Structure formats: structure tokens, C-alpha cells
């Protein structure tokens, strides 16, 4: 009885007891020095400022590294610009470097949009290059009998098939058993490179008067039939590259296929729930991605090098990843970015000869720029609030409430 009464009294009294303010109940906790806060609306102007700042910072860090090895960064950067676009020949060379980059970044962009980490573009390019080189060698060893146009047609078809095959393998195993596609595609790179090394050792691929492990120059042995025509000083691959970029843009944004790719990339479960055949979508996209890279292989053989070496792909597969990501997988944006990266590469070759700065500075700068651009994403989406600015954040809260 009494217990109940007491309980009752307590229950009744409770509202009257003045509660200490909630803040005092919590253990004393210091506000963190910096905390982050999601931005509601992101303006284009803000985005542009962050990206430009990030870019400048990347160049500054690059400049520090150049200073560290005793080179003048201002002259180096200036010479890189001059060396890549200063003369007509230099510009042509820069564009020539940009062609495979652009197409390859479109190719890996397709896969990346699906969150399929195809880093085997290098191998896919070589697969295409090897496939179309087989045709050339076959023609040469049989008295150079295939005329120009059919030769190129067969070469393109073979290159597409070769690249597509190298794209298909990892996609098949990924969709079937969830095999790690990153390492699969990467290992295919090494296998392709090693295979080209093997081809170089074959007597039938070498110059008849030489035992040096080097594949013959296709141009001289086919009376120039294998060479692509030139326009404005560059082989016509650049026209193909631009066309591919435009088609890719519309493919990704305006077609059912493109829609399916982005749904699979955003959420595999949503795609399945919507009744999409995710297995086929992934395999199909990788076939396209690989075939595009294979086409790059054809361009390298017929347009740029007129032969096949283990460096025919020359790191394009990796650099294309940075291009695709810097362009946010937008094929139109890939055009200026691939030209910019090509500029870095051509420019670095130039300063290698004029200033004795190693050409690998291009990779260094590319990596730095991408690092900073990756960091920029954060500052676009979030803002940092420092400890002292308490009142400001209160004001902001009021704004939100209103």
C-alpha cells in the first residue's frame, strides 16, 4: 500500500521538479576543432572555383617537386605548353597522342559507369593490334595480295573482335561467379604484352635479313597500303575519335542501353528488380568497351606506328582511366581532357630534351592532378565548420528552419 502511494506521489511530483537543462546532463564534450557539414545546394560557380583551386594546387605541388630536383618550374611549365602546341608539328604530335587516349577513355568510361573496373584497356588495345597485325602479316607473306580497302575493313573487324574477346572474358566470369574483374583484366594486360613479345621472336614476323626480335615495318612491306590517310597533318583517326565521342554521349544519355548501364552502375539490385537482364547488360557493355579499345589497337597499327611492339598501347590503358574519371565519365568532357593529358605527355618529352627533366614527369603530374580532383569532390559536397564559428552555425540553423 505505502509503496504504491509513494510511487504515486513521486509520479505526481515529477513534473514539478525543475529539470536541469538537458545540456548539463551530458558529459562535458569539447566541440571538435573541425567538423563537416553537407552543403544543400551546390552552385556551378562554387564547383568551378573548387576545381580551379584544386588544379592550381596540383600544379604547385608539381612545381615543388621540380624545385626539389633543382629545375625552374615556371620555365618547365611554359616549355611544356610551347613544346606541345608551339609549332604545327608539335600540335599534330599532341593530337596524335590524344586520339588513342580519347577513344580508350570512352571505352573504359562505359565499363566504369557500370562500376565494372575494367583496367585492362591496355590488353584490349594490344589484342586488337595483334588481331589486325595477323591480317597484315598474312597478306605480306602471301605476296601482299589484299587490296587497300578490303585490307582495312578486315583489319578493323579483326581488331574489334580481338578487343571484344578480351573484354568478354572478365565480364563472363564476373557475371557467372563474381570473379574479381580488376585483377582479371590487369592480368590479361600482362598476357597480351607477353604475347606480343612472343610474336616478336617469330621468324615469320621479323625482317627477313635480321634476327633482331622486332616485327617488320608494315608500311614498307605493303607499299604503304596499311597506312591511314592524313588530314591536317594527323592520321584520320582523330575524326573517328570525335565521332566515337559524340556517339558515346548519345548512347549513354539518350538510349535504353545507356539507361540500363547507369542503373546497373547505381544499384545492381534495382536493375534486377526492374527486370533488367544484368548479366547480358554487363557482358554487352564489356564487349563494346573491349571492341572500342581493340579499335584503338587498329589505329595504333595502321595510323600511328605501322608496326606492332609491346609498347603499342604504351600505358594508354592506364592514362585513359584518369581521363575518364577527370571527365566524370562524360564523353564530351573527355575531348578537352584527353588533349590536355596528351599535352602533358608531349610537353614532358619536349622538356626532357631541353631541360633534362625526365619525361615521367607527365605521369607524376597526371597522378597529382587526379589526386587533387578526387579531393575536390569532397569540398564540393561538404563544407568544413571550425570550432570558433558557433554563432554562424546557429544563424544557419535558423535559416534552415525558416
Amino acid at each position, binding site marked *: 500500500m505505502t509503496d504504491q502511494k509513494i510511487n504515486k506521489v513521486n509520479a505526481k511530483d515529477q513534473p514539478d521538479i525543475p529539470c536541469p537543462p538537458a545540456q548539463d546532463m551530458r558529459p562535458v564534450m569539447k566541440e571538435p576543432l573541425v567538423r563537416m557539414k553537407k552543403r544543400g545546394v551546390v552552385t556551378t560557380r562554387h564547383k568551378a572555383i573548387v576545381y580551379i583551386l584544386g588544379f592550381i594546387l596540383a600544379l604547385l605541388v608539381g612545381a615543388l*617537386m621540380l624545385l626539389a*630536383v633543382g629545375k625552374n618550374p615556371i620555365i618547365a611549365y611554359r616549355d611544356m605548353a610551347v613544346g606541345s602546341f608551339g609549332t604545327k608539328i608539335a600540335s599534330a604530335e599532341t593530337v596524335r597522342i590524344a586520339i588513342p587516349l580519347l577513344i580508350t577513355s570512352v571505352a573504359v568510361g562505359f565499363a566504369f559507369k557500370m562500376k565494372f*573496373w575494367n*583496367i585492362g584497356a591496355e590488353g584490349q588495345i594490344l589484342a586488337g593490334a595483334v588481331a589486325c597485325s595477323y591480317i597484315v602479316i598474312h597478306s605480306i607473306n602471301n605476296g601482299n595480295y589484299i587490296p587497300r580497302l578490303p585490307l582495312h575493313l578486315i583489319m578493323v573487324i579483326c581488331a574489334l573482335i580481338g578487343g571484344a574477346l578480351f573484354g568478354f572474358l572478365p565480364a563472363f*566470369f564476373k557475371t557467372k*561467379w*563474381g*570473379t*574479381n574483374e*580488376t*585483377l*582479371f583484366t*590487369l*592480368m*590479361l594486360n*600482362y*598476357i597480351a604484352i*607477353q*604475347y606480343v*613479345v*612472343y610474336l616478336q*621472336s617469330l621468324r615469320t614476323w621479323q625482317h627477313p635479313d635480321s634476327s633482331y626480335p622486332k616485327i617488320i615495318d608494315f608500311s614498307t612491306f605493303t607499299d604503304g597500303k596499311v597506312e591511314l590517310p592524313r588530314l591536317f597533318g594527323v592520321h584520320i583517326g582523330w575524326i573517328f575519335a570525335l565521332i566515337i565521342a559524340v556517339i558515346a554521349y548519345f548512347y549513354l544519355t539518350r538510349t535504353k542501353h545507356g539507361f540500363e548501364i547507369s542503373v546497373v552502375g547505381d544499384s545492381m539490385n534495382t536493375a534486377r528488380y526492374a527486370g533488367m537482364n544484368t548479366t547480358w547488360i554487363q557482358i554487352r557493355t564489356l564487349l563494346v568497351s573491349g571492341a572500342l579499345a581493340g579499335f584503338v589497337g587498329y589505329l595504333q597499327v595502321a595510323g600511328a606506328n605501322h608496326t606492332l611492339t609491346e609498347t603499342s598501347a604504351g600505358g594508354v590503358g*592506364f*592514362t585513359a*582511366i*584518369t581521363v575518364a*574519371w577527370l571527365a566524370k565519365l562524360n564523353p564530351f568532357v573527355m575531348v578537352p581532357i584527353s588533349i590536355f593529358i596528351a599535352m602533358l605527355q608531349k610537353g614532358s618529352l619536349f622538356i626532357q630534351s631541353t631541360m*633534362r627533366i*625526365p619525361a*615521367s*614527369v*607527365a*605521369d*607524376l*603530374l*597526371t*597522378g*597529382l592532378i*587526379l*589526386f587533387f580532383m*578526387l*579531393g575536390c*569532390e*569532397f569540398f564540393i559536397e561538404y563544407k568544413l565548420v571550425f570550432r570558433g564559428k558557433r554563432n554562424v552555425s546557429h544563424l544557419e540553423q535558423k535559416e534552415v528552419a525558416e
Partner: protein
Amino acid sequence: MKVLMVIINWINAAVLSGTPLLLATSGEILTEKSGNLNLGVEGQMYMGAIAGLAGAWFTEQWFGVGGIIPLIAAVIFAFLMGCISGLIYAVLTVSLRANQNVTGLTLAIFGTGFARFFGEVLSNKAGGFVAVGRETKGVFSNIDFGKLAEIPVIGTLFFRYNWLVYFALIIAIILGWFLNRTRKGLSLRAVGENPGTADSAGINVTRYKYAATTIGGGLCGLGGLCMSMVSQKGVWQPNCVSGYGWLAIALVIFATWSPLRAIYSSIIFGGLSVMYMRIPIPGLPREIYMMFPYMATIIVLILTSIRQSKEHAQPASTGYNYYREER
């Protein structure tokens, strides 16, 4: 008897070429246990390789001594450079929430460029090419075990290695013990499996991720040191790492995230990559033979993906960033 000798010598070579793999694999296991899938091992090894070589070379030049002091400098430089590379990755993915795959790939590109750039600068400085002195090379070659190394079979199998081989073994064993037998190791595994739960249990997720990725990067850097100082005998080669970093990532899967299993896995892969020099197969071109480790990796990847078991799986949160507010 001759066949036996060939096989024993082959195992000896396998252990030697597996050592950088073991160091890098241990580093990557530590990193992945915290939920960070760092694909930049190749770049980290390159950075460690050049930093170690530069550390040894500069010590020799400045202090005019060879041997043990340049060795210590090389180890410290390679480890610190690896740590820095891991730190870059951690800042970008943990604090700035960047995509792990792209960050890792960028690190691979950056690290390779970084090493080649400074490697060439150093070569120019040294007048042509960088090479450490004979004394320093000596401390990186096989340890002199005296009579022990002359015991048939056992001597070749156990006592004809450089100190890094034993060091890598000890590191792997310590790492295995740390992950499975200590409280901190348990917390780290919790962070990798489910950071949300770990956070609720009062574990500082950010701190663990940073520490694991940084130290893991340091181990990868030591793997790179092994490539430049042992495999290339202290001479700078722009292609010195040549895909070992990527093999290490594959080895992590092969070893199913266990440092102890990484020991024999790395020896198997080391053996595969030197097989073409040791065991000729008649009729098989050498160039095709050299594809073996890569083909084996693909086969291993496929097989492990087919027989997926819950027990030997990747830490559940690997590859995904942790957003505390979305817990």
C-alpha cells in the same frame, strides 16, 4: 639426384623472388583488413624502391660509408615513403571520401611516375646510372651462415638467403598473430567487417583505418626496397617492380586474407615467376612460358570465386567508404 637438385634450387629461387611479394601482400592484407581496398600497391612498391635506393645512395655519398648504415637508411626511407603513400590514400578515401578504386589506381600511376622521375634525376646526378657500393650490396646479399649453408638440401632450403627473407617471414608471422590474437587486431577486423558496429562499440574507425593503411603502405614500400636492392642488386631500373604489386593484390585473395597463408602463397607465386629460368619445358617458347604467373593468377581468381566460402571471404566492408552519418 640431378632432378632433386634442380627442384631444390628452384625452391630457393622461389623463396627469394617471393619475398617482395610476401612483404607487399602482408601490407595489403593489413590495409584490406581495415576495409580499404588499396589498388595502388604497384605504385607504393615503386615509391619504396626508389626511396630505399636513394636513401642508401645518399648515405654512401654524404658519409662515405658502406654496409650497415646505408642499409638502415634504405630501410627507414623505403618504409617511410611507403607510409606516406598509404597516408595519401587514407586522407583521400577516409577523410575526403574519394572512390577507393580510382584512388588506388591513381596511386599506382602516380607512384610509378614518381619513382621513374626521381630515379632518372638520381641517375643523371650520379652520372649515367645509380648503383650502390659493393659493401652495401654485400649486406643485401645472402647472409653467411658458415657451415650451416653447406649442409646438403637443408642448407640450400633454409640458409642461403638475404636478411629480408627472414625479416618478411617474421613480419608475416607477427601480423598473423596481431590480427588473430590481440585485442587491437580484433578491433581492426571489426572495422573491416562492419565499421558501423565497430563505431557503436566505441572503436575509433578513422584512427584504425589510417593506422592500418599507413603501416600497410610502409610494408609495401619495404617490398619495393626488396625489388631495388636485392632483385636488381642496388642498381636503379625504371621497370624494377614489373607487376609484382598487382600480383600481391591477387595473392591477398589467394591467401584468403591470412598473412600465414600468404607465406606459402608467395613462395608458390615466386616459384611460378622464376620457373621459366629453372625448369625448361621442351617445345614451349620461353616468351609463352613467362605468362605463367599471370595465367595462374587468373585461374586462382576464377577458382576462388567459384568456391566462395563465408569463412575465407574478403572483409565485408572492403571497397566501401564508411559514412558515419549514414550508419
